[in-house]
Protein backbone atom coordinates (compact mmCIF):
# COMPACT_ATOMS: atom_id res chain seq x y z
CA UNK A 1 0.00 0.00 0.00
CA UNK A 2 3.02 2.27 -0.13
CA UNK A 3 2.13 3.50 -3.62
CA UNK A 4 -0.79 5.48 -2.15
CA UNK A 5 -0.20 9.07 -3.10
CA UNK A 6 3.22 8.54 -4.70
CA UNK A 7 3.87 10.07 -8.11
CA UNK A 8 6.78 10.20 -10.52
CA UNK A 9 8.00 13.73 -10.60
CA UNK A 10 10.25 15.80 -12.78
CA UNK A 11 11.71 18.78 -10.96
CA UNK A 12 13.23 21.61 -12.95
CA UNK A 13 14.88 24.55 -11.18
CA UNK A 14 13.56 27.81 -12.61
CA UNK A 15 14.86 31.15 -11.33
CA UNK A 16 15.26 29.87 -7.80
CA UNK A 17 11.93 28.02 -7.77
CA UNK A 18 11.57 24.30 -8.22
CA UNK A 19 8.96 23.60 -10.88
CA UNK A 20 7.45 20.19 -10.30
CA UNK A 21 5.95 18.25 -13.17
CA UNK A 22 3.98 15.04 -12.85
CA UNK A 23 5.51 12.93 -15.62
CA UNK A 24 2.79 10.27 -15.71
CA UNK A 25 0.04 12.81 -16.22
CA UNK A 26 1.91 14.61 -18.98
CA UNK A 27 2.62 11.41 -20.91
CA UNK A 28 -0.92 10.10 -20.43
CA UNK A 29 -2.43 13.41 -21.51
CA UNK A 30 -0.39 13.29 -24.70
CA UNK A 31 -1.53 9.72 -25.35
CA UNK A 32 -5.14 10.82 -24.93
CA UNK A 33 -4.51 13.71 -27.32
CA UNK A 34 -3.14 11.30 -29.90
CA UNK A 35 -6.14 9.02 -29.48
CA UNK A 36 -8.55 11.94 -30.00
CA UNK A 37 -6.65 13.15 -33.05
CA UNK A 38 -6.64 9.65 -34.52
CA UNK A 39 -10.37 9.33 -33.94
CA UNK A 40 -11.01 12.69 -35.57
CA UNK A 41 -8.74 11.85 -38.49
CA UNK A 42 -10.37 8.49 -39.22
CA UNK A 43 -13.87 9.86 -38.72
CA UNK A 44 -13.31 12.63 -41.24
CA UNK A 45 -11.02 10.85 -43.71
CA UNK A 46 -13.41 9.25 -46.20
CA UNK A 47 -16.59 11.24 -45.80
CA UNK A 48 -19.36 9.66 -47.82
CA UNK A 49 -23.15 9.83 -48.13
CA UNK A 50 -23.27 6.25 -46.86
CA UNK A 51 -20.96 6.57 -43.87
CA UNK A 52 -18.51 4.03 -42.54
CA UNK A 53 -18.58 2.89 -38.91
CA UNK A 54 -16.11 5.47 -37.61
CA UNK A 55 -17.85 8.27 -39.45
CA UNK A 56 -21.19 7.20 -37.95
CA UNK A 57 -19.70 7.29 -34.47
CA UNK A 58 -18.28 10.73 -35.06
CA UNK A 59 -21.52 12.09 -36.51
CA UNK A 60 -23.66 10.69 -33.70
CA UNK A 61 -21.29 12.12 -31.13
CA UNK A 62 -21.12 15.59 -32.66
CA UNK A 63 -24.88 15.71 -33.26
CA UNK A 64 -25.72 14.76 -29.69
CA UNK A 65 -23.36 17.27 -28.11
CA UNK A 66 -24.36 20.10 -30.43
CA UNK A 67 -27.98 19.30 -29.56
CA UNK A 68 -27.20 19.51 -25.84
CA UNK A 69 -25.41 22.83 -26.25
CA UNK A 70 -28.14 24.34 -28.41
CA UNK A 71 -30.83 23.23 -25.93
CA UNK A 72 -29.11 24.96 -23.06
CA UNK A 73 -28.11 28.17 -24.89
CA UNK A 74 -29.60 29.11 -28.24
CA UNK A 75 -28.92 28.15 -31.85
CA UNK A 76 -26.22 30.74 -32.54
CA UNK A 77 -24.28 30.38 -29.29
CA UNK A 78 -24.67 26.61 -29.51
CA UNK A 79 -22.87 26.64 -32.87
CA UNK A 80 -20.16 28.83 -31.34
CA UNK A 81 -19.48 26.75 -28.23
CA UNK A 82 -20.29 23.33 -29.74
CA UNK A 83 -16.72 22.45 -30.80
CA UNK A 84 -15.36 23.34 -27.36
CA UNK A 85 -17.95 21.15 -25.66
CA UNK A 86 -17.27 18.22 -28.04
CA UNK A 87 -13.54 18.43 -27.41
CA UNK A 88 -14.00 18.74 -23.64
CA UNK A 89 -16.29 15.72 -23.43
CA UNK A 90 -14.12 13.53 -25.64
CA UNK A 91 -11.00 14.44 -23.68
CA UNK A 92 -12.60 13.76 -20.31
CA UNK A 93 -14.19 10.50 -21.49
CA UNK A 94 -10.96 9.09 -22.87
CA UNK A 95 -9.01 10.34 -19.86
CA UNK A 96 -11.37 8.63 -17.45
CA UNK A 97 -11.25 5.41 -19.44
CA UNK A 98 -7.46 5.42 -19.80
CA UNK A 99 -7.01 3.50 -16.55
CA UNK A 100 -8.59 0.43 -18.16
CA UNK A 101 -5.52 -0.19 -20.30
CA UNK A 102 -2.53 -1.87 -18.70
CA UNK A 103 0.36 0.44 -17.70
CA UNK A 104 -1.84 3.49 -18.09
CA UNK A 105 -3.14 5.96 -15.52
CA UNK A 106 -6.05 8.37 -15.72
CA UNK A 107 -4.75 11.92 -16.27
CA UNK A 108 -7.84 13.11 -14.34
CA UNK A 109 -6.50 11.31 -11.27
CA UNK A 110 -4.15 14.23 -10.70
CA UNK A 111 -5.93 17.32 -9.40
CA UNK A 112 -4.13 19.58 -11.89
CA UNK A 113 -6.03 18.24 -14.91
CA UNK A 114 -9.58 18.69 -13.57
CA UNK A 115 -8.61 22.01 -12.01
CA UNK A 116 -7.27 23.38 -15.27
CA UNK A 117 -10.38 22.18 -17.12
CA UNK A 118 -12.55 23.81 -14.45
CA UNK A 119 -10.60 27.08 -14.65
CA UNK A 120 -10.88 27.00 -18.43
CA UNK A 121 -14.65 26.63 -18.20
CA UNK A 122 -14.77 29.40 -15.58
CA UNK A 123 -12.87 31.90 -17.69
CA UNK A 124 -14.79 31.03 -20.86
CA UNK A 125 -18.11 31.39 -19.03
CA UNK A 126 -17.18 34.79 -17.61
CA UNK A 127 -15.79 35.98 -20.95
CA UNK A 128 -19.06 34.94 -22.57
CA UNK A 129 -20.94 36.79 -19.81
CA UNK A 130 -18.97 40.00 -20.41
CA UNK A 131 -19.48 39.70 -24.15
CA UNK A 132 -23.24 39.18 -23.78
CA UNK A 133 -24.09 41.72 -21.07
CA UNK A 134 -21.33 44.26 -21.37
CA UNK A 135 -18.81 44.92 -18.63
CA UNK A 136 -21.17 47.11 -16.58
CA UNK A 137 -24.03 44.62 -16.62
CA UNK A 138 -21.62 41.84 -15.74
CA UNK A 139 -20.24 43.67 -12.71
CA UNK A 140 -23.73 44.68 -11.63
CA UNK A 141 -24.69 41.00 -11.22
CA UNK A 142 -22.30 40.71 -8.29
CA UNK A 143 -24.09 43.42 -6.34
CA UNK A 144 -27.44 41.63 -6.52
CA UNK A 145 -29.58 41.46 -4.40
CA UNK A 146 -27.85 43.97 -2.09
CA UNK A 147 -24.41 45.54 -2.48
CA UNK A 148 -22.80 43.90 0.56
CA UNK A 149 -23.48 40.45 -0.90
CA UNK A 150 -20.58 41.09 -3.31
CA UNK A 151 -17.85 39.11 -1.46
CA UNK A 152 -20.18 36.17 -1.00
CA UNK A 153 -21.23 36.19 -4.65
CA UNK A 154 -17.57 36.25 -5.58
CA UNK A 155 -16.77 33.30 -3.29
CA UNK A 156 -19.82 31.50 -4.69
CA UNK A 157 -18.44 31.86 -8.21
CA UNK A 158 -15.00 30.61 -7.15
CA UNK A 159 -16.57 27.72 -5.23
CA UNK A 160 -18.08 26.54 -8.53
CA UNK A 161 -14.56 25.92 -9.85
CA UNK A 162 -13.67 24.02 -6.67
CA UNK A 163 -16.77 21.86 -6.76
CA UNK A 164 -16.67 21.07 -10.48
CA UNK A 165 -13.01 20.04 -10.46
CA UNK A 166 -13.01 18.21 -7.14
CA UNK A 167 -16.11 16.27 -8.20
CA UNK A 168 -14.24 14.77 -11.15
CA UNK A 169 -10.99 14.38 -9.22
CA UNK A 170 -12.67 12.79 -6.17
CA UNK A 171 -14.62 10.29 -8.21
CA UNK A 172 -11.75 9.17 -10.42
CA UNK A 173 -9.10 9.10 -7.72
CA UNK A 174 -11.54 7.52 -5.26
CA UNK A 175 -12.39 4.82 -7.76
CA UNK A 176 -8.76 4.01 -8.46
CA UNK A 177 -7.82 3.94 -4.76
CA UNK A 178 -10.77 1.67 -3.94
CA UNK A 179 -9.87 -0.62 -6.86
CA UNK A 180 -6.29 -0.76 -5.61
CA UNK A 181 -7.21 -1.46 -1.98
CA UNK A 182 -9.82 -4.11 -2.77
CA UNK A 183 -7.56 -5.82 -5.33
CA UNK A 184 -4.79 -5.87 -2.75
CA UNK A 185 -7.05 -7.35 -0.08
CA UNK A 186 -8.57 -10.04 -2.31
CA UNK A 187 -5.23 -10.91 -3.99
CA UNK A 188 -6.75 -9.65 -7.30
CA UNK A 189 -9.14 -12.60 -7.52
CA UNK A 190 -12.56 -12.20 -9.17
CA UNK A 191 -13.50 -8.67 -8.05
CA UNK A 192 -11.24 -6.23 -9.99
CA UNK A 193 -13.00 -6.56 -13.41
CA UNK A 194 -16.37 -5.69 -11.89
CA UNK A 195 -14.89 -2.81 -9.92
CA UNK A 196 -13.22 -1.54 -13.07
CA UNK A 197 -16.47 -1.83 -14.99
CA UNK A 198 -18.33 0.18 -12.37
CA UNK A 199 -15.77 2.81 -11.35
CA UNK A 200 -13.98 3.35 -14.64
CA UNK A 201 -16.55 2.82 -17.37
CA UNK A 202 -19.80 3.73 -15.63
CA UNK A 203 -18.73 6.40 -13.14
CA UNK A 204 -16.12 7.74 -15.58
CA UNK A 205 -18.73 8.24 -18.31
CA UNK A 206 -21.24 9.84 -15.94
CA UNK A 207 -18.65 12.19 -14.45
CA UNK A 208 -17.38 13.23 -17.90
CA UNK A 209 -20.97 13.96 -18.91
CA UNK A 210 -21.73 15.86 -15.69
CA UNK A 211 -18.58 17.97 -16.07
CA UNK A 212 -19.48 18.82 -19.66
CA UNK A 213 -23.12 19.58 -18.81
CA UNK A 214 -22.12 21.84 -15.93
CA UNK A 215 -19.69 23.73 -18.15
CA UNK A 216 -22.47 24.23 -20.71
CA UNK A 217 -24.89 25.36 -18.03
CA UNK A 218 -22.43 27.74 -16.39
CA UNK A 219 -21.86 29.38 -19.77
CA UNK A 220 -25.63 29.51 -20.36
CA UNK A 221 -26.29 31.08 -16.93
CA UNK A 222 -23.67 33.77 -17.57
CA UNK A 223 -25.02 34.55 -21.02
CA UNK A 224 -28.69 34.89 -20.04
Amino acid sequence: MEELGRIHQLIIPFFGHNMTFNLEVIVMTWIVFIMILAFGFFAAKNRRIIPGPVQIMGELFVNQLYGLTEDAMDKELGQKYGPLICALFLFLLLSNWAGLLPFMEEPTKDLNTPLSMGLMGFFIAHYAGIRAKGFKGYIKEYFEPIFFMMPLNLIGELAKVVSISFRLFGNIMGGSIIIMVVSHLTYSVLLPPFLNAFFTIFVGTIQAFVFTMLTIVYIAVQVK
Partner: protein
Amino acid sequence: MAIEGTHIVQAAAFLGAGLSMGLGAIGPGVGEGLAAAKACEAIGKNPVEAGLLTRTMLVGQAVSESTGIYALVIALLLLFVV
Protein backbone atom coordinates in the same frame (compact mmCIF):
# COMPACT_ATOMS: atom_id res chain seq x y z
CA MET B 1 3.83 14.06 26.86
CA ALA B 2 3.25 17.60 27.99
CA ILE B 3 0.10 19.09 26.54
CA GLU B 4 0.51 22.76 25.85
CA GLY B 5 -2.18 25.37 25.49
CA THR B 6 -1.32 26.22 21.89
CA HIS B 7 -1.60 22.58 20.91
CA ILE B 8 -5.05 22.34 22.41
CA VAL B 9 -6.16 25.49 20.61
CA GLN B 10 -4.80 24.14 17.33
CA ALA B 11 -6.46 20.79 17.91
CA ALA B 12 -9.77 22.51 18.60
CA ALA B 13 -9.37 24.55 15.41
CA PHE B 14 -8.83 21.41 13.31
CA LEU B 15 -11.72 19.55 14.88
CA GLY B 16 -13.88 22.64 14.60
CA ALA B 17 -13.04 23.02 10.91
CA GLY B 18 -14.09 19.44 10.25
CA LEU B 19 -17.31 19.78 12.22
CA SER B 20 -18.12 23.14 10.63
CA MET B 21 -17.90 21.82 7.09
CA GLY B 22 -19.49 18.49 7.96
CA LEU B 23 -22.53 19.87 9.75
CA GLY B 24 -22.77 22.77 7.34
CA ALA B 25 -23.07 20.39 4.41
CA ILE B 26 -26.25 18.70 5.66
CA GLY B 27 -28.74 21.51 5.15
CA PRO B 28 -27.65 22.73 1.71
CA GLY B 29 -27.37 19.14 0.50
CA VAL B 30 -30.98 18.34 1.35
CA GLY B 31 -32.21 21.77 0.25
CA GLU B 32 -30.53 21.70 -3.14
CA GLY B 33 -31.82 18.19 -3.64
CA LEU B 34 -35.36 19.40 -2.98
CA ALA B 35 -34.91 22.30 -5.41
CA ALA B 36 -33.72 19.92 -8.11
CA ALA B 37 -36.58 17.53 -7.31
CA LYS B 38 -39.13 20.29 -7.87
CA ALA B 39 -37.37 21.29 -11.07
CA CYS B 40 -37.62 17.71 -12.35
CA GLU B 41 -41.32 17.72 -11.47
CA ALA B 42 -41.82 20.95 -13.38
CA ILE B 43 -39.94 19.61 -16.41
CA GLY B 44 -42.11 16.50 -16.29
CA LYS B 45 -45.20 18.69 -16.39
CA ASN B 46 -43.88 21.10 -19.02
CA PRO B 47 -40.95 19.63 -21.01
CA VAL B 48 -40.90 22.52 -23.51
CA GLU B 49 -39.44 24.91 -20.93
CA ALA B 50 -36.67 22.50 -19.87
CA GLY B 51 -33.83 24.96 -20.58
CA LEU B 52 -35.42 27.80 -18.63
CA LEU B 53 -36.33 25.51 -15.73
CA THR B 54 -32.81 24.11 -15.51
CA ARG B 55 -31.33 27.60 -15.38
CA THR B 56 -33.79 28.69 -12.70
CA MET B 57 -33.00 25.54 -10.76
CA LEU B 58 -29.28 26.31 -10.88
CA VAL B 59 -29.75 29.88 -9.67
CA GLY B 60 -31.96 28.68 -6.81
CA GLN B 61 -29.47 26.00 -5.87
CA ALA B 62 -26.60 28.50 -5.97
CA VAL B 63 -28.48 30.68 -3.47
CA SER B 64 -29.34 27.79 -1.17
CA GLU B 65 -25.75 26.65 -1.36
CA SER B 66 -24.53 29.91 0.16
CA THR B 67 -24.81 28.61 3.72
CA GLY B 68 -22.61 25.67 2.70
CA ILE B 69 -20.11 28.16 1.32
CA TYR B 70 -20.15 30.09 4.61
CA ALA B 71 -19.29 26.81 6.33
CA LEU B 72 -16.45 26.26 3.83
CA VAL B 73 -15.10 29.79 4.45
CA ILE B 74 -15.21 29.30 8.23
CA ALA B 75 -13.49 25.92 7.90
CA LEU B 76 -10.72 27.40 5.76
CA LEU B 77 -10.33 30.33 8.17
CA LEU B 78 -10.02 27.91 11.09
CA LEU B 79 -7.45 25.86 9.20
CA PHE B 80 -5.21 28.56 7.82
CA VAL B 81 -5.82 31.85 9.61
CA VAL B 82 -6.65 31.13 13.26
